[in-house]
């Protein structure tokens, strides 16, 4: 990889939002790579770490809004795992802000684009290249 953003997208919300963004012509950064998952709760710590290992500049997990996970706790667990991954990275001196969790609904393409842009901004600020 070379500076890509890996985004794990829940197929009930974020993945649909990403489609909608494309449909509405909301442009997103080209370095985005989406991996579709059935629920944010499917994303494991090792997936996040491997993405960082492979050279992703940032890793995002995008799930449903709080309280609206089809599987009740999937998004909550995902958030916990992202937080833990952040810790794991920080403790070895890697910027923990490279991983993040966002909650959004399927009808929120703006929020989706915002999340990706925010990550790009964040990474520019921190100046950390891969």
């Amino acid at each position, binding site marked *: *990889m*070379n500076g*890509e953003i*890996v985004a794990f997208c829940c*197929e*009930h919300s974020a*993945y*649909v939002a*990403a*489609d*909608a*963004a*494309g*449909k509405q*012509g*909301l*442009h*997103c950064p*080209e370095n*985005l*790579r*989406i*991996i*579709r*998952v*059935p*629920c944010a*709760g*499917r*994303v*494991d710590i*090792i*997936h996040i770490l*491997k*993405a960082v290992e*492979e*050279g*992703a500049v940032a890793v995002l997990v995008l799930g*449903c809004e709080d*309280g*609206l*996970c*089809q*599987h*009740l*706790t*999937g998004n909550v*667990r995902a958030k916990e*795992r992202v937080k833990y991954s952040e810790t794991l990275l920080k403790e070895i001196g890697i910027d923990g802000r490279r991983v993040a969790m966002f909650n959004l609904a399927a009808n929120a393409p703006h929020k989706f684009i915002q999340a990706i842009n925010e990550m790009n901004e964040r990474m520019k600020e921190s100046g950390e290249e891969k």
Partner: protein
Amino acid sequence: MQIKMGIFLCDCGGSLKNIDFPKISGNLENLEDVAFVDISHNLCLEEGTRAITSRVLTENVNRVVIAACSPEFCERNFAGLLEKLRLNPNLLSLANIREQCSWAHEGDVTGKALELIMMAADRAQLLQPVETKEIAVNNEVLVVGGGFCGMKSSLELSQLGIRTTLIERESTLGGKLRELEGFYSSQRETMIKAVEKEENIEILTSTEVAGVEGKIGDFSVRIRKGKKETLRSFGAIVFATGYKTEVAAGDFPLKPGVNIISQERLAQLLQAPTPEAKPDTVGFIFDLSDENSRFPTLATLNSALTVKQRWGSEIYVFCKNVKVDSEGAEKLYCEAREQGVVFLKFDEKPTISADDGRVKIEAKDVLLGEDVTLTCNLVVAEEKFLPSEGTKGLSSLLKIRTDPQGFYQEENVHLYPVSSERKGVFFIGNCRGDLGLGRVLTDIFSVVAKIRELLSPGVVAEVDRVKVDPQKCVACLTCIRVCPHNAVQLVQIDSEKVAADISQLACDRCGICAAICPAKAIKFEGYSDEQILAQIKAIGAS
């Protein structure tokens, strides 16, 4: 078996102009395991179906990669097509090059499109067939709660030919209908009679649920009547356990001899023969707090009208707001005003005191801007709307969450309105909160439709989509504890080994268990660790 992959590229009628399809095709053709790369213009149309059919059959491929629009649109169709071609639908891998690539960026995105296809192709390499099989389901339904909601849904189900067992904790059917007069009383008897007459409905009164095991299509329910417990099987369970109301003791001076009564007591008075000395003035108070007051509003309007008609009393209704968003409420309100019921709007809580056998209400009416003091023969107190007795015990027995107020079914868009996290277990009516009549009816019809769909003969389910490897399972019970759908249980594998086992009917394919398993013993085909990691590795590799 040797992987043989067919790749189809769709340029969406030639509209994806910022992707150079021949170039992509050229890059892919020479890859190992790739049998062919085809470019089509409209894979979703008849011509596309024909193209896929002939190529898959002649080339005899065992993996299909399709780069086209979002899987949200095309996945079902293509999977269905593969099935027709006798290729397992799970051997399909999609690349979303339209919404998430061509449309998402300006300028040439050939490179990115190629990469997305590579990700899909690398995932395809690792896909395994997922077989399906027909699963026999029990299509009898258990309805818990013999109130309006329970009776009505039993009637609807039975009319579809679904055998229904209706159980009620009390000794008679009717539930809250028994406590409401006026319009509701006529409904009560008709409905009870209809339920009793219906052959497809078995009625068990003075009966409770003692335990629920199993899964959709095959629940075993322990039913308790007195001390006797019986085990029965059902395909689905509908809970219509209703609500209870309670006069908040803190709000009213509830002492014997003080004429402050509950709605329930009022209903009893109205059912009894009309008293000699009818009360001259009757006060009603509701909406003391800002909580959802749909039910108190309806109950008050209904009772106020009935009292007016039967006793001809003067009626004063004290309230903060009259919320008429529930069905029929506005009509009741207008009728009440026409009949001379006086509504007084307070902002601060009225003072209520006993006054020589009568009740004095002092309030500041915000519309009149004046202090109002009224002495009534009778005051009907506001009642709080609460989950019915036993809801807490039932929810822990079912392992299903309740909202902070203790009602079932949080407003989760994916489950809304009547499904629960446990497939085949439904909650309808006022056990979900203060709904009002209109929404209760909607619930009833939704649940009937859902059950009909779920329990139709010949339910087909995937086998081992999410599967535990018993050799790797360390029986730590983590998956059993975390599964939001109660789909995992511990089973004896052989004489010495126990392991987790996932019920394919109850499983809702979230993958939470696969992620959390500390022994990595759970594989979610299609989204396995290897398949996810293959996609990660493919990023930037081309």
